[in-house]
């Protein structure tokens, strides 16, 4: 009887350790895919920037036009570290109104569970992330009594405002550049969340290996 109970416990421990290893490998896989996506997004962004310079002229697209006046950031990054939550959670708040930075018009939350759940559906996390945060925007704006159209208009307005340092009438290529770098920023936040999960999984596996020795 006792040997069968010991057998059941040991098999439960083995399955738990296997699950931890699988979680670690899953996180590692997601992390590598995201790093690759980030590299592609940045590469695309820089190429489109060169294309915009070609189109608009070097005098209209150069670093000497960056706005050095103090102003509120339209996109901010938050770290939630609560006692109840094991892992720090990173959130990107995009295109907040620069007139009233307390009011967030859009949020992108990249839940690590959602990422792991959706990993098998598509190899392109930035598309998954975009899909997940679009639906979240609609839910969130519905909660606060707004409408998706208003949220989109506010975001478009802030996008236009941030590009206006290069002039009020910019080429569509420059807007494409902005989208690419925006995607890259979202992927960076996803990487942060996945890395956090990866490190936790690694610690768990490492702990188990130490215990078995």
């Amino acid at each position, binding site marked *: 009887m006792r040997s069968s109970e010991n057998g059941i416990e040991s098999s439960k421990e083995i399955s738990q350790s296997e699950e931890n290893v699988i979680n670690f490998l899953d996180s590692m896989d997601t992390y590598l895919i995201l790093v690759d996506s980030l590299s592609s997004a940045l590469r695309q962004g820089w190429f489109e920037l*060169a294309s915009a310079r*070609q189109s608009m002229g070097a*005098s209209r697209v150069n670093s*000497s036009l960056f706005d050095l*006046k103090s102003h509120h950031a339209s996109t901010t990054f938050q770290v939630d570290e609560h006692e109840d939550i094991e892992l720090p959670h990173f959130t990107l708040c995009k295109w907040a109104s620069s007139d009233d930075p307390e009011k967030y018009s859009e949020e992108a939350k990249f839940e690590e569970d959602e990422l792991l759940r959706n990993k098998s559906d598509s190899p392109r996390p930035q598309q998954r992330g975009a899909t997940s945060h679009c639906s979240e925007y609609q839910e969130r704006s519905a909660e606060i009594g707004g409408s998706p159209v208003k949220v989109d208009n506010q975001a478009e307005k802030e996008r*236009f405002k941030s590009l*206006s340092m290069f002039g*009020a009438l910019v080429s*569509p290529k420059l807007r494409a550049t902005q989208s690419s770098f925006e995607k890259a920023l979202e992927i960076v936040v996803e990487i942060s969340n996945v890395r956090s999960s990866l490190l936790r999984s690694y610690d768990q596996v490492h702990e188990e290996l130490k215990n078995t020795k």
Partner: protein
Amino acid sequence: MYGFEAMTFNIHGGYLEAIVRGYRSGLLTAADYNNLCQCETLDDIKMHLSATEYGPYLQNEPSPLHTTTIVEKCTLKLVDEYKHMLTQATEPLSSFLEYIRYGHMIDNVVLIVTGTLHERDVQELLEKCHPLGMFDSIATLAVAQNMRELYRLVLVDTPLAPYFSECITSEDLDDMNIEIMRNTLYKAYLEDFYRFCQKLGGATSEIMSDLLAFEADRRAVNITINSIGTELTRDDRRKLYSNFGLLYPYGHEELAVCEDIDQVRGAMEKYPPYQSIFSKLSYGESQMLDKAFYEEEVKRLCLAFEQQFHYAVFFAYMRLREQEIRNLMWISECVAQNQKARVHDSVVFIF
């Protein structure tokens, strides 16, 4: 009298026409571009350019090179050639050559004003200005708070003064006002250049009218596409279009109300010269429109050299060199970013 330029042109313009035709023979060929497109690093590009007329300008540049250095040095060559022609020119050719600079002067004015609005250092902005557009009091632009001051303090003594009459207001300078000022100035400049060429008459008038009309039409299309989805109203957009060109006035009426690229295509395809440009693009796409316009422009500029005894060759040469410098900038960027597969997206062959 048109057709009799051969009798008198060479008295004052013969030497410089020969000079500019000599300069034209130094433009890079397709073989040069093929070699450049196969370069692995910017130092390879420098090595290939050392065998061209750009060689003396790049030979002393230390490694590692930057793409902006290549563009800067190639532009210096263009400026040297322009200054040589300007110092040798007599009226009315000297005025004609001065007109070629005014576009760059407008760009420099807007760069300084925009940079000052963004609290940038004036010296840093001056380094980014195009050398062809420099004038003595350009640094004083930084003190102006509105367009009236801009005109009164600085621009009244420059060749751009006559172009300011349509945009003098006391409104403070902001991004939209600066953009409207840029386009209004350029519109006034193009119209003034057009009238000047018409007064010159002969082959200069005929060829320059075609080239400037194309420039005005291209600007109208770019203003339309760039203003889609912005706060610029239809009336303000219409006011930025030049009052000449193939699209004036009915094409402008249609462009003023366009809300997307397909409507722009619909308006432009009614004009046979532009139908061929838009036929190269797929629906909803505008990425290759710039290249298509540049290719058409290069074709027209090359045709200017087929006729003698007119000033349009000078304008054509300057524009062809600027296109060549754009090509070199693009090739350098593709090589630097390891995107050689995309290099033919924007290179426009001249010959």
